[in-house]
């Protein structure tokens, strides 16, 4: 236990295990395969958004515009498809658009010297507005994610008798299954993102410089680190991932609605996941695995409460309280870890 707590992710592990234990005890439907599959979209997309955000938060910046980038990118995907390009080109070009918004955020932050909170607040609104303009505020069907329904004859064995029934079966294309529509697609992408960025943050120069830039910006510059390049790079990465998740989610739902309010909420949940996972808003500290667990914790909470039949009106209220309690436990465990004597 002591060893676990000395890990930076220790506190969020404890909090998540407590949540799992609670819901498993109060509801026997919680630990079922069906529910685990229900849980996935509650957390996998947020995990990807959150790990991108962690890379920025560790560098001492924040990106609020991920909500809008998340919304904007699938519409660009749609527009490129309308222009007659194949699916893979739509994906690539729309992700380039997302990355460009990240680059814009980065340039404005490091060269204009505006705080990233303000810059990305601007792009959150601006890109959200742009999405409304290009979409005409109307939802679109996601290209490549069309669901084809066929009626098939399925033979089943019931009480020793072979019975043939007509069933409706849904089919989606391989592209869609790979990018969001497959049951475990988002989970796999989330785990890939976590594995890659965990390695980047803990075992590469890029990660070390990110910590240095967030921990001691002046010192990092004195040591010869190109601070601006690191910050811009992390903004690009964060926006790229937000765009990617936007496409995954649009493909999963097979359509996308220009809901800018929902986009902002998505952003807040991702930032919450990063913070609950142990990343500091002040920079220098943060963990990728923690962000994954933070997203998992929020997903479990939402899924568990829905499963228990908590009134929808109470859901956000309880979620908010739970986040505060989780953060208190988190901070307490963090103090034990650091042995700062406040605990």
């Amino acid at each position, binding site marked *: 236990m002591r060893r676990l707590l000395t890990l930076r992710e220790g506190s969020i592990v404890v909090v998540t295990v407590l949540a799992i234990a609670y819901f498993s005890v109060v509801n026997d439907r919680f630990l079922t395969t069906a529910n685990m599959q229900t849980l996935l979209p509650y957390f996998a997309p947020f995990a990807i958004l959150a790990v991108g955000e962690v890379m920025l938060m560790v560098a001492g910046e924040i990106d609020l515009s991920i909500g809008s980038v998340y919304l904007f990118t699938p519409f660009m995907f749609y527009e490129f498809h309308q222009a007659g390009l194949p699916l893979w080109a739509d994906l690539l070009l729309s992700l380039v658009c997302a990355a460009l918004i990240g680059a814009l955020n980065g340039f404005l932050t490091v060269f204009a010297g505006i705080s990233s909170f303000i810059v990305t607040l601007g792009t959150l609104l601006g890109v959200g507005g742009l999405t409304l303009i290009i979409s005409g505020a109307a939802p679109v069907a996601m290209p490549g994610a069309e669901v084809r329904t066929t009626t098939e004859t399925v033979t089943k064995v019931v009480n020793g008798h072979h019975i043939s029934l007509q069933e409706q079966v849904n089919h989606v294309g391989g592209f869609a299954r790979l990018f969001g529509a497959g049951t475990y697609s988002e989970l796999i992408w989330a785990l890939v993102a976590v594995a890659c960025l965990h390695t980047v943050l803990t*075992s590469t120069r890029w990660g070390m410089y990110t910590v240095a830039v967030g*921990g001691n910006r002046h*010192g990092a510059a*004195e040591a010869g680190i190109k601070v601006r390049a690191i910050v811009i790079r992390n903004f690009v990465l964060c926006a790229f991932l937000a765009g990617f998740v936007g496409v995954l989610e649009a493909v999963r739902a097979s359509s996308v609605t220009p809901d800018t309010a929902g986009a902002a909420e998505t952003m807040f949940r991702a930032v919450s996941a990063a913070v609950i996972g142990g990343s500091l808003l002040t920079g220098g500290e943060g963990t990728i695995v923690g962000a994954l667990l933070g997203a998992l914790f929020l997903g479990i909470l939402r899924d568990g409460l829905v499963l228990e039949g908590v009134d929808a009106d109470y859901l956000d209220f309880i979620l908010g309280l739970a986040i505060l309690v989780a953060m208190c436990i988190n901070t307490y465990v963090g103090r034990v870890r650091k042995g700062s004597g406040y605990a």
Partner: protein
Amino acid sequence: MPEAAEHREDVLRVEHVSKRFGPVTALRDINLRLGKGEVLGLLGDNGAGKSTLMKILAGFQKPDEGRVVVKGEEVVFRDVGHARSLGIDCVYQDLALVNELDVVQNMFLKREKVRRPLALLAKREMRAATREALDEIGINIPRLDVPVARLSGGQRQAIAVARTVTSDADIVLLDEPLAAMGAKEGAMILDLVQHLREEGRVSIIMIAHNYVHVLQSCDRVNLIQAGEITFDKPTADTSVEELNEIVVEEYRRARRAALGPTGN
């Protein structure tokens, strides 16, 4: 300037360097030389331009005018990395340590060892090298995997100095290495400088405030006043009294000027 024969031994020369920050002239006309293996003490009041000069020599800031000659060749530093590639490295007054990184990561910041092809950090190798380097210069830091935030001021200073002297640098700039240090920790750093001086491989410019320390650890002393080098003598030819007298005289002059010609 001294005679040409001496120049060949100089690893570093600064000629007529000036630097302004807006209306403020930080360096007026700096001329300075550093011989191979020499330890040069740089004294001067706060705001006299010592740190600005160090930052220029480290490639962190660019001079407005003048030349910098490194090992016989005139250079214009592009950035810190360029100066470092020429063997010049600086321990800044603020140490440039990252509190959140551990001892090993700080030791190797911006000179990491990586393993191809993925360029992942060679952690074990860097750790062993760190331990070896710290042992060699006699600094005892029990754990290398703790964030440097948890170390004492002296240990932090020691790491900052150690990372510079264990790199390939042969021109080391120490910006007030004894600031904010206890007597024992200060002695540790002075011992380290002494050790390097005896070894003779690296040349050092050290900013300090304590005349006794400078006379004890340096071969030569320069005094910088209002952006100019006003004094240049081997430590053997000067004394605490002489240095004191110059500085006090500067203060008196400034005071007289401030009071005006009537002298009331």
